[in-house]
């Protein structure tokens, strides 16, 4: 089999849970991990006589999502019912949007221009819908258990055009999408907790062909790497089929991450007739044009714009910029630190190094870390002025995390200010030479390569306070 003769054609459907306090159509909480069915009411249980009423905040978040993806928002959109029977679908239909979604025609940029990997993935549509509940099959013997806490949680479904041509492009698209969802604070965008779910539509065609092949849909993907592996496996399977002259059947496949394999579900997607029709319990959703404009204008700076601005304003390298803009709060902290110390290079190093390192250990949020951007900026100023060495500055950073005192004051108290006074330096040098007579003798007799070792001893003796430049000069004068 030769996959090189084939081209992959992929479109992704991403279901994203919106970060609302309550469900899409009722006042039940959306919290994760509560007792089964604790967050259910007549509406999300689908009891007779209960009616849906749409959550305004869900509309705001869906609107923000769509604008962040560059979509056209529609002043009128219509909810529809998608009818099918399943125990975790309480009403026997899902409220979703069908032929009149809230937004269409957007774009997500992936890759970068520098290495020629830049590419736009077009967004077909963004629509609002409600989530289903959960069926638990391993809890009781012989029966399945239904928990409807998740039923009715607001989602947006983001559907891409079949513009993706490889597993790595799919991964890049998902990472870019996740970053946008996090920047706009519309979702936790967490695949492990199920707040981001991905279905892959995949087909193959001979290179050069413009016809679309028969597609399959892969569900049950729980990680981005799982998506990429599943695509590779399915690509190989479809290529092999076509190579043998067989046909790809339109069907829904399940990814088994444990076995690294794909298998078909028993139902054929084509056999479903969901009998969509407009949801009569919900009049058309009308969005005021002025309100829409306000939503658009209040959109935060998006990752691509931030990267471009950082490049222009701070003169940082691509890798540093990617790391700094990976999360909105990291970029924000960096900008605050830079504003304080006026030294973007040092600010980047400190934020990406000691600060993120400390957060990795503590697990806290960057905007709640005890070393505030103002204090970190002051520390960087102290280091840049030459008053403390980098070694001392790192020690100071650790102390700043435990007490609320100004960096300069701590440096003075702890004797971490750089000492350039010759009498003090000479006292440390004498002490070091006395403590290491063998090295002292060899150094005095002309073995100059020992100078570095001795400087290190002096720095240690001075607890980092000695000015290493002057120590070098003074030691050089003692060498034979």
């Amino acid at each position: 089999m030769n996959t090189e003769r084939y081209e992959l054609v992929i479109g992704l459907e991403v279901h994203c849970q919106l970060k609302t306090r309550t469900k899409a159509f009722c006042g039940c909480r959306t919290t994760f991990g509560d007792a089964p069915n604790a967050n259910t009411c007549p509406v999300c249980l689908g009891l007779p006589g209960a009616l849906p009423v749409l959550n305004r905040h869900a509309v705001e978040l869906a609107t923000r999502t769509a604008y962040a993806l560059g979509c056209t928002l529609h002043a009128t959109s219509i909810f529809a019912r998608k009818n099918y029977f399943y125990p975790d679908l309480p009403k026997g239909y899902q409220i979703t949007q069908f032929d009149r979604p809230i937004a269409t025609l957007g774009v997500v940029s992936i890759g970068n221009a520098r290495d020629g990997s830049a590419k736009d993935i077009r967004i077909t549509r963004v629509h609002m819908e409600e989530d289903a509940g959960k069926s638990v099959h391993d809890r009781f013997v012989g029966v399945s258990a239904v928990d409807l806490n998740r039923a009715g949680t607001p989602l947006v479904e983001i559907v891409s055009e079949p513009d993706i041509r490889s597993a790595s492009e799919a991964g890049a698209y998902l990472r870019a999408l996740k970053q946008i969802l996090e920047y706009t604070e519309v979702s936790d965008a967490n695949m492990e907790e199920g707040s981001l779910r991905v279905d892959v539509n995949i087909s193959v065609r001979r290179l050069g062909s413009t016809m679309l092949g028969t597609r399959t849909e892969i569900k049950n993907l729980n990680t981005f790497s799982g998506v990429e592996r599943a695509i590779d496996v399915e690509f190989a399977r479809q290529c092999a089929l076509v190579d043998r002259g067989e046909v790809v059947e339109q069907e829904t496949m399940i990814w088994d991450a444990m076995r690294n394999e794909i298998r078909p579900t028993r139902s054929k997607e084509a056999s479903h007739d969901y009998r969509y029709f407009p949801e009569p319990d919900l009049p058309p959703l009308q969005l005021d044009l002025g309100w829409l404009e306000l939503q658009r204008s209040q959109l935060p700076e998006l990752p691509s714009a931030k990267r471009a601005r950082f490049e222009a304003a701070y003169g940082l390298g691509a890798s540093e910029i990617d790391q700094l803009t990976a999360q909105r709060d990291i970029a924000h902290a960096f900008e605050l630190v830079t504003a304080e110390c006026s030294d973007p290079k040092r600010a980047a190093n400190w934020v990406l190094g000691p600060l993120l390192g400390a957060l990795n250990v503590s697990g806290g949020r960057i905007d709640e870390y005890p070393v505030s951007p103002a204090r970190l900026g002051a520390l960087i100023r102290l280091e840049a002025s030459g008053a403390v060495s980098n070694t001392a500055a790192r020690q100071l950073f650790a102390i700043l995390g435990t007490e609320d005192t100004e960096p300069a004051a701590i440096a003075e108290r702890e004797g971490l200010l750089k000492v350039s006074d010759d009498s003090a330096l000479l006292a440390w040098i004498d002490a070091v030479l006395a403590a290491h007579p063998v090295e002292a003798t060899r150094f005095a007799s002309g073995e100059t390569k020992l100078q570095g070792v001795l400087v290190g001893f002096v720095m240690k003796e001075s607890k980092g306070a000695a000015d290493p430049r002057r120590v070098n000069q003074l030691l050089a004068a003692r060498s034979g």
Partner: protein
Amino acid sequence: MTLTEPDGLLARSAADIARAVSAGELQAAAPLVASMERMAAVEAGPGGLNAILCTDPEGARDATALVARRMADESLALAGVPIVVKDNIATLRLPTTCGSRILGHYVSPFEATAVTRLRHAGAIIVGKTNMDEFAMGSSTENSAFGPTQNPHDTTRVPGGSSGGSAAAVAAGVVRIALGSETGGSVRQPAAFCGIVGVKPTYGRVSRHGLVAFASSLDHIGVFGRSVDDAALALHAIAGLDPLDATSADHPVVSYCDAAQARHERPLEGLVVGWPAEYFPSSLDWKIRHLCDRAVDALRELGATVRTVSMPHTALAIPVYYIVAPAEASSNLARFDGVRFGHRVDPGSLRGMYEATRSVGFGPEVTRRILLGTYVLSAGYYDAYYKRAQAVRQLIAADFAAAFADGVDIMLTPTTPTTAFKIGAVSDPYDMYLSDIFTVTANLAGIPAMSLPIGRIDGLPVGGQLLAPHFEEARMFRVAYALERALGGMAHQ
């Protein structure tokens, strides 16, 4: 005992009962006691009406005690007034079965907004009433709990689907009852039973707690022994409800209109439309004659009468029997035996769905689910459902054009026949045709009501008033005037 003449206390209007209770002239529990006694009499034995499915004497007594306490601090428009509620409207203590086996002994864990508002107004819920299963029917014969009989002739149907509520009012058990309408299920039984039945504007009364049949057509409506009873009841339940996204944010005015009694020509300047399509040559000439008499009465009250044309009227039944089953097929999907109601479990999931629904639903419900599933299915959606919705807009436009052209209200017959014999109509489509004059108002969402305009061979005939959206007050003004003008003739 005659089945249709209320005696004693319940011969007084709901407003009068509430006033007497509020003034301390009557014990708060007295109207309830009268109602329970009357109910026991008309429901008793094999010849009983079978209008009431269940009662809650204890809960009702507690409610009267509560009303007695509350009267000290507030005035209650329906203080102590007994009412019955159609069994597809959710109540807290009494079961809500929709006349179906599939709900078993289901007691709703929440209450319909309309019921809450009636209770807050001081009304006492005496019982739940029989109905065609899931409100699908025009005779109350499609109930899992047996048919209801018409108090005027117990061999005949009371109409439907709210037949139990209509029969209870007609038999003098209560002055006021809640019903529901999707295609005429309040007005048609009101006409058959010789009482007043009102379907308000779509959105005027919250549907929260009304078990859905066809959401875009469903309304909660009221029955009254008189126009005033109905006006009082509608005023109590009308108004915006945040729990129903289709409920209207439109001011509620009082529909009671006692003042006009002093005017000699209270309808001076009113233009009454006489839609030709509602008076086909095939219409029973006796019904036509009674409508003419009612129109003459309106003229004498000062109204002018104008013939109008509603060219799409004949399409209303086909449109209705596409849209309503389509929505029903989806609304009834939740009756799956998973979370509530009656479950039949042969051991597999698919088997449970199939057995629960085939045992639980009666033939008319099954018929409409199949019909609805068909008209929504891929390949047929455009030809049936989508087209029906477009024609529905044409029907609504007929009304809009007539009202825009200066017509204030229309008068038509409510039904093409009087109450028919139990078992007489067996073809489903023939049964559907009994809604022919009423479904248009559901399709257009306009307010409409039926009130007695006479009798044929002892059986009541209803006249229907049709008004523009949210013009219930105007509709009631005409109804009061007509009721007063016809007087005893309305029941002859």
